[in-house]
């Protein structure tokens, strides 16, 4: 360790009104190193990285780049030093195409002053995409891409800078295993070339798989920086939360839910042309039904069809034995179905409004008397959910945009829970949520189930599917290809069903 570090951030502090986001944090990255940054939702990871990118100015502290003190006042300054950033929230212009997004602000110049050399632009973009095995036409508007591919476009954008240090703030949260593998391969190649990477993720297995060292933050303070070699997951979690975590497996042991309970949601021969094929299953009262499958297996489409975002071409949906006639999501909500989608950013958080208003917005009519909203009741209600889900915020009066990424997601989940749905569909419910809060959300799901709610949980994390569900459906190519008992099935069994590999 006697080389000059590439980056040394020294005693960085940053306060927001009501929050000390960072308290004298030190952070060092060596050349050619992959440094993981770990901490609970709201620990200050993104804030530290935004300071490095010049988005925020620190209240105090010093940044050294290759041993020299530097001032980073804007993202442009950071770029000039050789720092490239993938922000936690996607930073893409939805209507612009992939190539324009990748090179926005750095377009190759054309012949006439002020013009753009489009041929080169698209060629270079094509190369960047190929580097990431991304089979996407660079002329596709970004909004037409699925979330995972949008995320990969972000990665391509960051790589195209040929930076010395690449910061990746939760790049994997919306990626599937296949894409994570490609990303990791690229990260290793960059490391070979001497590029340093800061990698933020809530998935410990990813951190163990890719990183050399880890820096852990808790409540805005540095807990420590350690090499990962010889470190255990438990030790990491202890550093992160400052205590042991309880068993997260919340399933009541050995109970057979189906035999004793009423069906709540029945799906019969449900099809959507080219997307879903003849889907049949029953969700029982108080059951958590896991839905596993690869990206593209049709899981999100299934959820959206039940929620009547899209009409099915065929088939029926029955709620408590009654055939539902749903035309739009509002009908589904009225019938008692709620859907927390995988893309929570797009799902209508009012970013400029307070946490309290965001949580209670779905049931304002219940909180109103003579047409006037009783804000005090709304705040009490919001506080209840904030406590239940462990949303880290100075108060329910805080604006949602000021919450950390993971905490914004908890607000979305809270918003849907206020509806007290009979059927709750959760698409990737713990994406981007820290290990401790994950357990809280699983506990909450279990509690809802014990009150009779039927829960359909789509998840790409196999340990979650196996650990939380009472029963598991596996989808492939728009069909349900297997049903499994999570007490007996293994991750391998699910993967085999999901990929269609022969069972040995």
């Amino acid at each position, binding site marked *: 360790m006697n080389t000059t570090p590439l980056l040394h951030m020294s005693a960085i502090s940053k306060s927001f009104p009501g929050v000390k986001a960072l308290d004298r944090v030190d952070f060092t990255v060596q050349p050619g190193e992959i440094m993981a940054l770990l901490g609970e939702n709201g620990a200050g990871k993104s804030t530290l990285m935004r300071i490095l990118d010049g988005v925020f100015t620190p209240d105090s502290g010093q940044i050294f780049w290759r041993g020299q003190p530097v001032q980073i006042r804007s993202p442009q300054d950071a770029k000039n030093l050789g720092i490239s950033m993938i922000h936690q929230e996607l930073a893409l212009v939805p209507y612009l195409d992939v190539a324009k997004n990748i090179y926005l602000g750095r377009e190759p110049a054309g012949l006439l002053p002020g*013009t753009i050399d489009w041929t080169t632009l698209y060629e270079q973009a094509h190369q960047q995409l190929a580097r990431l095995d991304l089979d996407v036409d660079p002329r596709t508007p970004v909004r037409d891409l699925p979330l995972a591919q949008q995320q990969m476009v972000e990665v391509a954008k960051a790589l195209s800078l040929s930076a010395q240090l690449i910061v990746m703030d939760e790049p994997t949260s919306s990626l599937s295993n296949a894409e994570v593998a490609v990303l990791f391969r690229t990260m290793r190649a960059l490391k070979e070339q001497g590029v340093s990477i800061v990698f933020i993720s809530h998935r410990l297995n990813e951190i163990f798989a890719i990183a050399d060292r880890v820096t852990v933050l808790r409540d805005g303070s540095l807990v420590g920086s350690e090499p990962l070699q010889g470190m255990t997951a438990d030790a990491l979690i202890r550093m992160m939360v400052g205590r042991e975590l309880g068993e997260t497996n919340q399933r009541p042991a050995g109970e057979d839910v189906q035999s004793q309970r009423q069906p709540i949601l029945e799906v019969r021969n449900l099809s959507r042309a080219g997307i879903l094929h003849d889907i049949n299953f029953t969700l029982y009262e108080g059951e958590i039904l896991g839905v596993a499958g690869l990206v593209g297996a049709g899981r999100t489409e299934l959820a959206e069809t039940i929620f009547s975002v899209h009409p099915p071409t065929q088939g029926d949906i029955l709620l408590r034995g009654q055939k539902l006639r749903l035309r739009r999501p509002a009908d589904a909500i009225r019938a008692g179905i709620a859907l927390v989608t995988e893309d929570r950013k797009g799902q209508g958080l009012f970013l400029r409004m307070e946490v309290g208003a965001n949580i209670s917005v779905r049931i304002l009519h219940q909180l109103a008397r003579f047409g006037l909203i009783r804000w005090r009741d709304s705040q009490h209600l919001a506080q209840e959910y904030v406590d239940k889900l462990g949303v880290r915020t100075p108060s329910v009066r805080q604006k949602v945009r000021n919450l950390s990424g993971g905490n914004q997601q908890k607000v979305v989940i809270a918003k849907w829970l206020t509806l007290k749905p009979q059927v709750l569909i959760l698409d990737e419910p713990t994406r981007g949520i820290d290990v401790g809060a994950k357990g809280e959300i699983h506990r909450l799901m279990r509690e809802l189930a014990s009150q009779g709610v039927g829960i359909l949980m789509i998840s790409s994390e196999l340990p979650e599917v196996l650990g939380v569900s009472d029963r598991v459906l596996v989808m492939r190519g728009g069909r349900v290809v297997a049903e499994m008992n999570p007490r007996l099935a293994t991750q391998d069994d699910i993967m085999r069903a999901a990929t269609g590999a022969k069972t040995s």
Partner: protein
Amino acid sequence: MSLSLSRLFRRSTVFIFLLVLVVFFSLTTNRFLVGQNLTNILVQNSHVILTAVGMTLVMLSGGIDLSVGSVAALCGALSAGLVARNGLPAEIAIVLGLVAGFGLGLVNGGLVVYGKLPPFVATLSMLGVARGLTLAYTNSRPISNLGDAYNFWGRGDVLGVPMPLIVWVTVVVLMTYLLSQTRFGLYVYAIGGSEETARLASVPVNRVKMVTYGLSGTLAALAGVLLTARVYSAQPQAAVGLELQAITAAVLGGVSLFGGVGNIPTAVFGALLVGVLGNGMNHLRVASYPQQIIQGVVLVLAVAIDMATQRIGGHKSKRGSSS
């Protein structure tokens, strides 16, 4: 599939509307579908087209410019006054008028970018101020005796092609090039799509926005000059309500009120649609108050369609086909 359909619809609404109107007026009046009248439509609506182009620039970047009517009147009057009162050559007076329009646009931009005022508020105040200045400068009386060199811009022709037509076609070509081929154009779309993202990508957001307002002001001034030249005099109440026509034209042409979507050529068709509507109603002898009502209704319809397709499109964007 429904995605491309909704887009196609969005892009072609204006053409469908235009066709329907043309057919309707051809059937209900006998003077509509005449070569002379069609040329009239192209010439008489030059000011709407020019301001619609400026409006498109501003709206694409996520703003709006309500001051175009007043700015057109003020700059038209100014250039006319410089000729009639100060005896300046027409060309110089016109250029000074355009410079004034650019300056007023920059003031709008400065209030929005640096004053952090909502575009609606900033340009609404400019609407009031510029109209007031027009009344003061003209003493609420028309300025006439502008001379042939000035009137040429509204009444003259080159090889039989009317000047106003030449002017706006040139502007449309230039601005379309600017918007589709240059860095500036890309930045306008990027800022309208997501200002925050544009900032992170170190796009000079403030400067680009200033320029869009500046251009809108310049084009409004040009519109004012053409209008003045066409009626041989600067009227203190010229171009009242032009902002409504320009916004209607842009929105009819598929420019989103939320920024980031749209282009100049279809906005021009939007302006022609507005023009055809007015021209046809004149032929049907609809009085001017009902005409204004109908124009208002058309704007509401256009916005409703904008929001509806926005919703359809918005849905798709979130859908993705993952998992």
